[in-house]
């Protein structure tokens, strides 16, 4: 159920290798991994703990530079970008959704989104920026817009986290275990919401998850085992 396949990929990961540790105790986190994400596509990455899923997110999110291979974001080679340029791409082109939301405790929901715009260096009047309140409305959080994270449930936090990742109009969404702290019903809601937002805004997304229950909402599922990517034996 992939969307328009003629689009040029948002993200192209090509034969990327990444090792952790030093000396004798090196662990191969990513072993010749290749993955491409199209606009509007939600790709789920499943796999056991320590299989390299987080490393994949770190590499795709310009947080870690791979040892070999190339990562292209909208055609830009991240390997050629310095730390400053990678931070710029993170704030302008990439949206992160963290485990359990990782919202800032001091800010209300609407301020979480406004802070993300400030970090991105985008004025609220900028055409690239999306209206924080309208975005909260689209994730059904209008009624909680002026509450702080401590007053929200896990699912609500995650929905605000998704809205925050989208507010600066990113090309790529990177989602880290969004359902880790949620019950079944909430997990379905959140991942459904994610898929819907990704489709309607044409951003590409990678979601790392343990939760096989929610894979039905994703456009594509890949499995990671010992740093290698493959098609899973059985999907939902």
């Amino acid at each position, binding site marked *: 159920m992939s969307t328009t396949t003629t689009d040029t990929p948002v993200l192209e990961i090509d034969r990327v290798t990444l090792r952790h540790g030093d000396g004798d105790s090196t662990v191969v986190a990513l072993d010749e991994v290749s993955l491409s994400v199209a606009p509007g596509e939600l790709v789920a990455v499943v796999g056991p703990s320590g299989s390299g899923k987080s490393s994949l997110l770190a590499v795709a999110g310009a*947080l870690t530079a791979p040892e070999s291979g190339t990562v292209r974001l909208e055609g830009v080679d991240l390997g050629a970008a310095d730390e400053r340029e990678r931070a710029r791409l*993170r704030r302008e082109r990439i949206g992160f959704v*963290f485990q359990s939301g*990782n919202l*800032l405790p*001091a800010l209300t929901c609407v301020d979480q989104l406004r802070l993300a715009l400030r*970090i*991105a*260096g985008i004025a609220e009047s900028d055409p690239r920026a999306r209206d924080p309140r309208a975005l909260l409305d689209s994730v059904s959080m209008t009624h909680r817009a002026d509450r702080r994270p401590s007053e929200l449930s896990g699912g609500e936090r995650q929905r605000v986290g998704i809205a925050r990742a989208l507010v600066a109009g990113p090309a790529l969404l990177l989602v880290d275990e969004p359902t*880790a702290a949620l019950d079944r019903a909430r997990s379905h809601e959140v991942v459904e919401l994610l898929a819907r937002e990704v489709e309607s805004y044409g951003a590409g997304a990678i979601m790392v998850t343990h939760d096989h229950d929610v894979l039905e909402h994703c456009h594509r599922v890949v499995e990671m085992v010992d740093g290698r990517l493959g098609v899973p034996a059985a999907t939902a």
Partner: protein
Amino acid sequence: MFLALRELGFARTRFLLMGGVVALVAILVVLLSGLSAGLVNDGVSGLKRTPVTDFAFAEGTGTDAAFTRSVIDVDQVDTMAEQPGVVDAAPYGLLLANAHREDDSPVDLTLVGVEPGSFVAPTELAEGDAVGAADGIVISETAAEDGLAVGDTVTLDRPERTLTVVGVLDGQHTFGHVDVAYLPLSTWQELIAGADGPGDEVPAVATAVALRTDDAFDRTAADAAAGTVTRTLSESFGASPGYTAETATLLLIQVFLYAISALVVGAFFTVWTIQRRHEIAVMRAMGARRRFLLADSLGQAAVLLLGSIAVGFGLGIAAGAGLSASPMPFALQAADLVLAGALLFVLGMAGAAVAVARVTSVDPLTALGGQR
């Protein structure tokens, strides 16, 4: 400042506690500054309010007690007056005396003998006459506040001699915490010699040569010619009893206060920054510039410091106004307060900056994964 201000509101208990500490330090700084200035006034205002730039003491006089030990001949005044760069030179006699009022209550006076009409003879009077009458004294305003008035007499204990208040000076004139009373040099010389009244043979001496000099004054050459040792006005403050010890003690306390406030602010922001490590990692992963995080955190420290210093100074100045009305030597000076406030702010910011600099070393990778 977007995040900084919201955090101040969110964690207001923590910030209020911290601000309270800084405000208390600021109150102490204000009170100590006022006390320092008050003690300096008490110690040397009688010297400060003269147009004197230097005093030439007898050769070989140490600094610590020059005003009570030194004796010069009036001839040395004339020699000094001829030296290049000396605009004015006049004899200056100083004597600490115990006396009694008419009602027999004791009063301490610093008797300063000057030649009437010379440049050291005070001219700014609140009331009465200037120095001139043989047994007439012109007293400090502070002595007048203590109950002495023009026309009152005081009797010195030794030699026993009755002096009449003929004038009151404008402002505080004290030396070594004792009110100054000006009198003619000739009377002063009689008191020094222990003479009972005019007519006795008295030596032509004084304590020091009061000088007004300009840039052309050569201290070494002048001292060689006149047989004196010249000290600038501020150097001679050290000759006022207790002056050096008092100012050094208060300065030490103030230095400690500044150091304490810098360290406390630094410690607070260290803990605060560590508490926010995960949040900072999240913002770094979102691509926040280091400059953005630093400006936000330093802005927060600036708001905290400015607010608490302002509150502390407000309370300190209010308390100081109460003290000024009491007999405590207390004087608040705007320049001192501005300097103290700026110093507290700058040192507090330095402490915060050291702590906050950590935000740049937070690894955005730690935002991924489950640690919370």
